[in-house]
């Protein structure tokens, strides 16, 4: 290494224990080179050093020229003196150069070294003292200018500039040695095998730099949040519902939930209808051996708390009862009182919520009504105009609790525990309207970061008009609540545009650098 000064420095220090100055010991070596070597040595405690900083006066190229060959006026004087019979003014530039002639002539006049005799210049003396040159020579030697006035003058005349110079005061360190031992860059298998590790010196590690980037696979941020929610549900004893049906019927998505057929949610503006295939069949039993059925839903498995025998579900009865509760009322309800259209119920839609799945599962539960907890997190579809907060697709988180004797205060109490698990500890509840829950409560949580109450979900008790046609007993109550997966994620990561979170426009760098999700922590 050409710039490696380590050996030179160690040698220079060997003479005595006194410190040395780099400006004196190695005046011609650039300070950067010295520093690099000093750092290597210092990191191994072989030397100690202080950095000294000072300003020195340095001659400019013009200053150097004067220091070597004399000032302009001296050159003019010498030329005039050399011409014994006087020098023609016009000849001067030709002899001393144009620049010298111009500046030097005036100065030589001022100093009284030459005089004008018609068109001739004549010397008035034999010897002169070239003060400028003398001064510059002193500067060159001492790297300082004797007084401030002279410095200002020389700087103005652009003969001298000031420069910062770094030098080092170097002393032996505790581990000083004359020789710099060869260093290994890493501990290797060969070193272990040969035993050379015992004597080897390892290059010190740079503890101020990052390590080598590690190639890593990653999960999508939204799925990381989804997993946190799934864990919360599992911790609270919930079973996951089968959501693997994007296409639903109007019946399961709306009618069975007591959403009237003229409800705005069923508009073409809000719901995706299916053109092909054209029309669904009325509700009926699932095909046998469907691998997507969840275990406790299968009639052969009886839950430990179940005592009553399993009923056979009558789908025709269910259909008729749903019709009746809409059309003329039943179960203590006056109904919506409109002619219910079977074709409307058989239209195929992309599910607008996963509550259609909850409906399907609760209907199964009615075969053997017992306390139960279900949840799902999956994609739903709305025919919305796409903007920063709306996509035609998003994920719905839905929870359902069925039990005898549930109270509204129990729902509130449950929500407090549920949301505390995601770090939200202050909740309030606002009366709201939803066609399939009564009471309906919007859940507001206090967001510390935003410093305000934000709506974080919807909840309620499913209406008797929804539950009783299924065969759920009148005194069994069912909580339902839901929230979107995207909204809490957007608030958490400060994402303002949903398209940066879901869909193909999401930045892979965002996916790859997104930290682990710990909902309870922040």
């Amino acid at each position, binding site marked *: 290494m050409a710039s490696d000064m380590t050996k030179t420095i160690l040698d220079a220090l060997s003479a005595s224990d006194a410190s040395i100055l780099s400006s004196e010991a190695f005046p011609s070596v650039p300070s950067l080179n010295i520093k690099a070597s000093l750092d290597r040595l210092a990191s191994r405690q072989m030397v100690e050093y202080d950095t000294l900083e000072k300003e020195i006066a340095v001659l400019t190229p013009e200053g150097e020229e004067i220091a070597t060959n004399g000032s302009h006026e001296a050159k003019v004087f010498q030329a005039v003196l050399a011409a014994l019979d006087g020098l023609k003014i016009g000849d001067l530039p030709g002899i001393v150069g144009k620049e010298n002639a111009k500046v030097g002539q005036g100065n030589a006049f001022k100093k009284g070294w030459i005089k004008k005799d018609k068109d001739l210049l004549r010397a008035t003396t034999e010897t002169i003292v070239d003060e400028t040159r003398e001064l510059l020579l002193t500067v060159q030697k001492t790297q300082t200018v004797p007084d401030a006035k002279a410095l200002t003058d020389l700087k103005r005349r652009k003969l001298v500039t000031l420069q910062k110079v770094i030098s080092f005061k170097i002393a032996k360190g505790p581990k000083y040695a004359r020789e710099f031992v060869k260093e290994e860059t890493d501990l290797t298998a060969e070193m272990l095998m040969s035993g050379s590790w015992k004597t080897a010196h390892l290059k010190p590690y740079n503890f101020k730099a990052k390590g080598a980037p590690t190639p890593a696979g990653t999960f999508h941020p939204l799925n990381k949040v989804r997993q946190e929610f799934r864990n919360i549900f599992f911790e609270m004893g919930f079973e*996951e519902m089968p959501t*693997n*049906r994007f296409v639903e019927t109007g019946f399961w998505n709306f009618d069975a939930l007591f959403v009237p057929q003229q409800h705005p949610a069923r508009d*073409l503006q809000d719901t995706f209808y299916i053109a*092909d295939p054209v029309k*669904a069949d009325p509700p009926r039993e699932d095909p046998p051996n469907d691998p997507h059925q969840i275990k406790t839903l299968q009639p052969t498995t009886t839950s430990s708390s179940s005592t009553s025998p399993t009923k056979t579900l009558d789908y025709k009865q269910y259909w008729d009862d749903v019709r009746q509760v809409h059309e003329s009322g039943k179960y203590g309800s006056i109904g919506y009182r409109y002619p219910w259209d079977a074709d409307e119920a058989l239209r195929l839609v992309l599910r607008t919520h996963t509550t259609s799945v909850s409906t399907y599962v609760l209907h199964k539960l009615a075969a053997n009504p*017992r306390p139960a907890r279900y949840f799902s997190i999956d*994609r739903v579809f709305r025919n919305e105009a796409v903007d920063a907060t709306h996509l035609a697709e998003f994920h719905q988180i839905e929870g359902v609790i069925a039990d005898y004797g549930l109270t509204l205060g129990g729902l*509130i109490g449950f929500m407090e525990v549920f949301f505390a698990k995601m770090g939200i500890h202050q909740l309030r509840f606002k009366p709201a309207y939803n066609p399939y829950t009564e009471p309906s409560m919007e859940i507001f949580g206090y967001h510390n970061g935003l410093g305000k109450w934000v709506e974080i979900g919807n909840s309620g008790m499913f209406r008797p008009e929804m539950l009783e046609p299924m065969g759920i007993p009148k005194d069994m109550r069912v909580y339902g609540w839901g929230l979107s997966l995207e909204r809490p994620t957007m608030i958490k990561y400060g994402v303002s545009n949903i398209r940066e979170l*879901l869909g193909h426009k999401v930045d892979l760098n965002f996916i790859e650098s997104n930290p682990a999700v710990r909902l309870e922590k922040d």
Partner: protein
Amino acid sequence: MPTISVDKAALFEALGREYTTEEFDELCFEFGVELDEDTTNQERPIVNGKQEPPQLKIEIPANRYDMLCFEGIALMLNIFLGRQPVPNYKLVEPANGQLETIIVKEDTMKVRPLVSGAILRNIKFDQARYESFIALQDKLHQNLARQRTLVSIGTHDLDTIQGPFTYEALPPKDIKFTPLNQTKEMDGEELMNFYEKDKHLGKYLHIIRDSPVYPVIYDSKRTVCSLPPIINGDHSKITLDTKNVLIEITALDKTKVEIVNRMIVTMFSQYCSEPFTIEPIKIVSEHNNETRVVPDISPRKAEAEVSYINQCCGLELKPEEICKLLKKMAYDAKPSTTNPDILDVYIPATRADVLHQADIMEDVAIAYGFNSLPRSFPSKSGTIAQPLPINKLTDIVRVEAAMAGWSEVLPLILCSHDENFGWLNRKDDGNTAVKLANPKTQEFQVVRTSLLPGLLKTIRENKHHAVPIKIFEVSDVAFKDLSLERKSRNERHFAAAWYGKTSGFEVVHGLLDRVMAMLKSAFITGEEGLDNSAMSDSQYWIEELDEPTYFPGHAASVHVRIAGKELVIGSFGILHPTVLENYELKYPVSTLELNIEAFL
């Protein structure tokens, strides 16, 4: 949810006190409406040289038709605050005992068969009341009446017309009148053309336009009162000076026509010289048995169980206490004289949203205060926490793919027909994909049958990313399946895509091997025989595949044998350069896509 704008000063005057924005917000929150905006500190529009006074914009739940106007909001909040009892609405027949009549002709059955109505006598309008009257009709038209399709309202200065009225259905050519705020008389056809481009009315024309007959209401002198559901006649229009108002409401829906009638008369009868009185009218409609006197504004009697209410709310209120709370929500309720667990509840004509005792129970909870209810924690459950089997399997595959260094992406499920078929050099046989009927854009024409379009679009949008790009997704696609109730089924797929300067074919192949190994599926080939298959649940092998999606000779189908059954579960390969061109990708791409449901 409809948002109603009300004059702030007028509302606070009606409520008898000033509120700060926060205080009023709190009141709304407790009652279950939402203060959307207080315009006090905003720039407000200048109308007729005068700046609009501060407004409160209040969001009303979609089923509270009784709160779609200033009058209703003020009334319900005043009742809630205990400042006002529920008004005692009364039907008052005219002194001579002769009810005003609308005679319905049978031809209306062909287009809009129902009519209802009422008269408000000696009403006193001012500018604000008049505007509110118009706005309420507008809100009812938009919401309950579903853009006038189900119900539409016409209001008339009764002193300009003469009963008895007839509700008829005539060919458009035969109906001639000057529409509201116009000067020119036109017939039904001309009217349709005239309003075709009208920003406000144009959207309603379709309701009757193609019908051979249009509904029309005439007075006894053949003056056209209205052409429902489009427009009234100019002749009978109401003004600030109108004293007596005839309301006529035509409809397809029997229930909603009466709800609309009750909303209008209950809200605006307070401005009659004798407040809260309504003059009924007679509908003569023999052909469909709809002859009757309207409106019916008597409270509906219902029963509610004390035990049910207490049980749902988690309270132990006495019947009298419940009745007191119900009063705040506009009910008149009394403990039944025959059954101690029953309340006789009189639901006012304004509360069309009450269908079941569940609604009454909710109102008890609101009046009590949701946030004051005693809180508990439901601790009983018969379910044992467990994931859905397909999701558990999905997580195994996701974890393995991510551990192998691939990044998970989450594209959309809906895509264009081209993205799903043509761009992948695949043909649509018509029996595969679920197609949408009403997408707003071409981006959403079909439900994807493959995860590839989403992966390729994700790469297209991430070309700034360093190569190679290695991404995967485990999610559902959907297929048509006419054997099922919903005529479609989902299928869980795993797909991965490599994008780099070289094809990555072997890398994708390696990912397949890794995932199969983790699913305990052993690789078998003709030459080498079984690879560790004794330990395996299944075996898999690959066969060269010739499909236009892939580069010739560089694609394979993936076969498994599980429980003695052989299945093709997917394929992988280098994408054909024409596919790359379709997706605007400049480097080679290799993809893998599997149906993982075989491993359930």
